[in-house]
């Protein structure tokens, strides 16, 4: 039924419209309470549903945060354990090294000290003889023997001079011997100084290491206690490690691409240039497989060397088997690198052949000339082909860091997403509640006439008993 037909039930469309409007307003007014209840129930249900969903999301976010916290703490604990273990190993090495040399050092020190003692005793200064002639001279001088004493004194003088000269000679000789002994003590002093210096250095090193261990242990204890500060440090470190390792992995990917370019063309000579597996050339897949095998070997090598710990099975192997694994993986890598160097050489040969053929087909004789410095690019390609597989070995280190930090970073992103989702759901819940209220107001908007009449009537009813209450239907509306 169209609008125009609705307006034709009276001859005057305006009258028809007015009647229809009145009927509509009346119907709406009569259904007002029910409609309000329906709107409020619907809005309330929607709001509650959204709030429950928000609570659920917050709960999930909390669980994820707890899990992330556990992961972070576990990773931090493991990392600190490794650091402390390494520090202890270093201390043990230092102590073992110094203690192994200690008996020898002790013996040398004792010998040196003994020699010094002996020399010191020998170098003691002999006291000069007491002058015996002075008293005799005095006695002779007091004798009353006229000139007889002069001769005696002269003889005594001569003897005294002679004795003095002899005493001086003995003294010089003894001094010289003492100096010689003291000179001989100098190397022993130096030896003692060196030995003590070495001991000092070792002790300083051990003290330094012990301080480092103390610091790491404090951090470790903070992690074990699950302190927020430790968690914050671990979290930020994890994000930094993630980006750094991602950057290094991107560089490694570029290296892989260069490696791929080096061997893809010559691989066509081996497996054919026109075979396809799916949408990819078999030669390309073969080249990629070689590179992947090299990376895998690099991972195993790093695991066997216990530089990385991606595979607990390899770390748990006995030392003997690990050493064997190191040798085998290294030999495979060496073989692969040699193959790559050969393929890189083959690539250059093929390239030259193709250039020569194309030059011949184009009738361009100048292009066929051989560049005398071409060996440089050939050698460079071969060198790259040989070195790149070994360089890719070190991808294992950033890969391990990336894998470990990825868990944390993904967890953090998940937490952020869940937080945002919870916020949106809460906003929507509140929005639904307010929309319900707004819908009620909008419902009342065309009913302003009957509502006004209702208010007036209520006021008139209450005028005799009490002042008009503020809580009228209009206010409610």
């Amino acid at each position, binding site marked *: 039924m169209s609008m125009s037909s609705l307006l034709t039930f009276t001859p005057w469309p305006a009258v028809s419209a007015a009647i229809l409007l009145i009927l509509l307003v009346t119907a709406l007014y009569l259904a007002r309470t029910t409609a309000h209840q329906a709107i409020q129930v619907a809005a309330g249900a929607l709001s509650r549903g959204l709030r429950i969903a928000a609570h659920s999301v917050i709960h999930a976010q909390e669980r994820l945060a707890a899990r992330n916290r556990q992961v972070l703490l576990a990773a931090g604990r493991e990392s600190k354990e490794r650091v402390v273990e390494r520090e202890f190993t270093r201390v043990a090495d230092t102590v073992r090294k110094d203690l192994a040399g200690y008996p020898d050092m002790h013996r040398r020190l004792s010998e040196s000290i003994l020699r010094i003692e002996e020399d010191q005793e020998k170098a003691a200064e002999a006291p000069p003889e007491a002058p015996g002639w002075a008293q005799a001279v005095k006695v002779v001088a007091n004798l009353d023997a006229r000139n007889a004493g002069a001769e005696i004194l002269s003889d005594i003088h001569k003897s005294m001079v002679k004795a003095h000269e002899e005493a001086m000679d003995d003294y010089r000789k003894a001094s010289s011997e003492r100096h010689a002994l003291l000179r001989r003590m100098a190397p022993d002093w130096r030896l003692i100084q060196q030995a003590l210096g070495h001991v000092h250095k070792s002790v300083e090193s051990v003290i330094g290491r012990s301080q480092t261990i103390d610091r790491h242990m404090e951090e470790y204890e903070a992690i074990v206690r699950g302190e927020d500060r430790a968690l914050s440090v671990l979290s930020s470190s994890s994000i930094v490690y993630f980006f750094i390792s991602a950057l290094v992995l991107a560089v490694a990917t570029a290296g892989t691409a260069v490696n791929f370019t080096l061997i893809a*063309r010559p691989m*066509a*000579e081996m497996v054919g*240039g*026109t075979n*396809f597996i799916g949408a990819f050339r078999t030669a390309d897949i073969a080249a990629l497989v070689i590179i992947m095998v090299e990376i895998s070997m690099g991972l195993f090598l790093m695991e066997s060397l216990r530089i990385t710990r991606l595979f607990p099975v390899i770390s748990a192997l006995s030392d003997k088997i690990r050493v064997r694994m190191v040798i085998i993986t290294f030999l495979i890598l060496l073989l692969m690198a040699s193959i790559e160097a050969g393929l890189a050489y083959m690539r250059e040969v093929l390239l030259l*052949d193709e250039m020569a053929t194309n030059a011949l*087909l184009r009738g361009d004789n100048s292009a066929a000339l051989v560049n005398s410095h071409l060996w440089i690019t050939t050698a460079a390609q071969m060198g790259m082909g040989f070195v790149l597989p070994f360089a890719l070995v070190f991808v294992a280190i950033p890969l391990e860091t990336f894998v470990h930090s990825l868990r944390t970073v993904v967890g953090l992103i998940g937490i952020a997403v869940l937080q945002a989702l919870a916020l949106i759901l809460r906003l929507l819940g509140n929005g639904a509640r307010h929309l319900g209220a707004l819908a009620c107001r909008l419902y009342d908007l065309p009913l302003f006439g009957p509502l006004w009449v209702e208010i007036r009537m209520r006021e008139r009813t209450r005028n005799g008993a009490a002042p008009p209450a503020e809580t009228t239907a209009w206010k409610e509306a």
Partner: protein
Amino acid sequence: MTRTLLLLLAAALALPACAPPQARSTGVYLLIDTSGSYNRQVTKAEQITLYALTRLQSADSIAVARIDTGSFTEKDIIAKATFDDRPSTANAQKRAFASRVEKFIDQSPPAPYTDITGGLLQAIEFLNEKRTAHKEILILSDMKEELAKGYVRDIPLDFKGFDVVALNVTKLRSDNFDPRQYLGRLDVWRERVEKGGGHWRVINDLDHLEGLL
């Protein structure tokens, strides 16, 4: 359960490998008109052949044949090759092919008649046998067919999947008097190729063969 899963995984990986290889190769058949009216242009065939050889890769096929009195025969094929999988062998084949074509061009005798239809039939047969993904027939001719008595060439040609390219279509003396003859000749061939389901092109400027292949 694990074993079944592993088997399924292996099968999924092996399936693409076992599937028949998708045809990606190109087949080229060059027809050289050796009739008296066109024999002077034959030297240009070498240029086109060499260009085609530079564009073709491993597993592609090429054949060069002459158009003479009766061209629907293998005897008219001067050189043919399907390039090896290995690029180095393919290069050697290209050099040998170029040498054979060069030798033919130096010694090509003029033919009294021009059996273009026979040559096209031979080209279709050759390329269909090779099962190449992309098939291209190059015709170096003035496109004026002159059949000897007794040769029936009023045959519908199946050019489905073929690109037919007329190269260096020279104007005859009579075309200068009445260009409609030249245009009509080209129209007839275009109609014939397109009626057979093929795609027709004309390239007269041999210095700009970039669009070819």
